[in-house]
């Protein structure tokens, strides 16, 4: 479980996050949604410590991350897997080397053991024939899968995904969503996903937090979204003409 309490963050005098308090639940896919520029990515980067917070606390199972020193944070980060928007694979390493990288850095496993663990993770993301390929030779969906494999190779307790579906076609996006959801339940980890893809929300959103202009605008489940009377959330969810028509038809019925 991750608990965020009264978190504030500003850049050059502009408030980006204002008084955010959220609890991300264990064993669930927790989705942060909101418009581009609403502060979703900044919130995620504050939670994992890539941005320092101005005020507030972030607790990883009651361990206050904000108050930790560099070494303590390093230890917590070993419990975190992160999937970046652009996958962030290391260009100079093959798929296998990318996934094996955290094992090389932090374990004393033999090469055979590392290979075995790497192959298990690649198999888990349904990528078995790409070990020797470089990131430049992979499609967007394959890169995301490799990034997921790398994120789970050390059995993390927390998984963060920043826009996991950006740049993917709807079908591949669904595959990635399902994969993240399955891994969350299989390993019983706390997963936090940043997205503005409503398909993802309806597919895997067990807990949904809506960020609007730096504030927490709404919190609920995917089922609650359709019935909400929150104006800002409705504006965001039913932004497309297609979604508007569905909503109008629902109201008509």
């Amino acid at each position, binding site marked *: 479980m991750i608990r965020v309490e009264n978190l504030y963050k500003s850049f050059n005098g502009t408030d980006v996050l204002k008084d955010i308090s959220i609890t991300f639940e264990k064993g669930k896919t927790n989705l942060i949604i909101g418009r581009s520029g609403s502060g979703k990515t900044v919130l995620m980067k504050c939670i994992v410590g890539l941005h320092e917070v101005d005020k507030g606390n972030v607790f990883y199972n009651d361990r206050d991350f904000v108050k930790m020193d560099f070494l303590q944070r390093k230890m917590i980060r070993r419990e975190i897997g992160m999937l*970046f928007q*652009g996958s962030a694979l290391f260009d100079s390493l093959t798929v296998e080397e990318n996934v094996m990288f955290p094992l090389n*850095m932090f374990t004393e496993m033999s090469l055979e053991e590392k290979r075995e663990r790497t192959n298990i993770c690649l198999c888990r993301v349904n990528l078995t024939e790409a070990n020797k390929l470089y990131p430049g030779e992979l499609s967007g969906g394959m890169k995301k899968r490799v990034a997921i494999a790398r994120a789970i190779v050390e059995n993390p307790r927390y998984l963060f995904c920043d826009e996991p579906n950006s740049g993917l076609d709807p079908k591949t996006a669904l595959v990635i969503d399902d994969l993240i959801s399955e891994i969350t339940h299989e390993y019983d980890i706390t997963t936090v996903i940043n997205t503005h893809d409503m398909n993802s929300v309806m597919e895997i959103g067990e807990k949904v937090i809506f960020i609007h202009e730096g504030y927490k605008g709404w919190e609920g489940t995917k089922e609650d979204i359709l019935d909400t009377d929150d104006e800002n959330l409705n504006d965001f969810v039913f932004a497309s003409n297609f979604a508007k028509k569905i909503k109008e038809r629902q109201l008509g019925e």
Partner: protein
Amino acid sequence: MNFFSIFGRYLILMTRVFSKPEKHRIYLRQTIKEIENLGLNSVGIVIIISIFIGAVITLQTRYNLESSWIPLYLIGLTARDTLLLEFSSTMVGLILAGKVGSNIASEIGTMRITEQIDALEMMGINSASYLILPKILAAMVFNPFLTLISMFVGLIGGWFAVILTGALPSSDYIYGIQYLFIPFYITYALVKTVVYAFIITSVSAFYGYYVQGGALEVGRSSTRGVVYSSILILLADLVLTQLMLA
């Protein structure tokens, strides 16, 4: 950003670079890789430039010292001392600032904007140390060899020029490059090279590491890295010359 702010950030980065590595074996492997990337891959350009500059220095000295009062072997001596004292360390340093410096700044800058550095940090790895320390060590270890290669090849270039143009007898040139040889000049050149290697790698890495934005900013940071490394090399040249030769 003012000078003190930039210098402060540079010092903070260097503190992180020289902190204890996560795993020495991995850093050693990275350093060997960087010796190939930054050092061995620069041998070609150093040889080409040194051979031509050695030839040109010899010919220019010959054409500017046309006097029956000056013995011809002094042309060899002048070419040798120019190569040893300045060209093979400082000029090669400036050339490497362009080649290696831009390479480092753009590589690390691209890693920054594609979130690869964030990915390293998220794994609990000291990204500054992992990415920059092997480059600094590799350059400080290998660049002295580049300087020695440049000295040797530069002298060969001068000899070729002498043979091909007949500007002076080959025997005078050979005698000149051995005449009044001061071994300390090599030590002086190597010390300068090691300092330049640190400047080139750390300054370029600094500009790459703190890049923000997109491809345009990576290009700009790469240019800045090269320009500031070159200026600092010239400054270090002045200081070291005063310290070591005065």
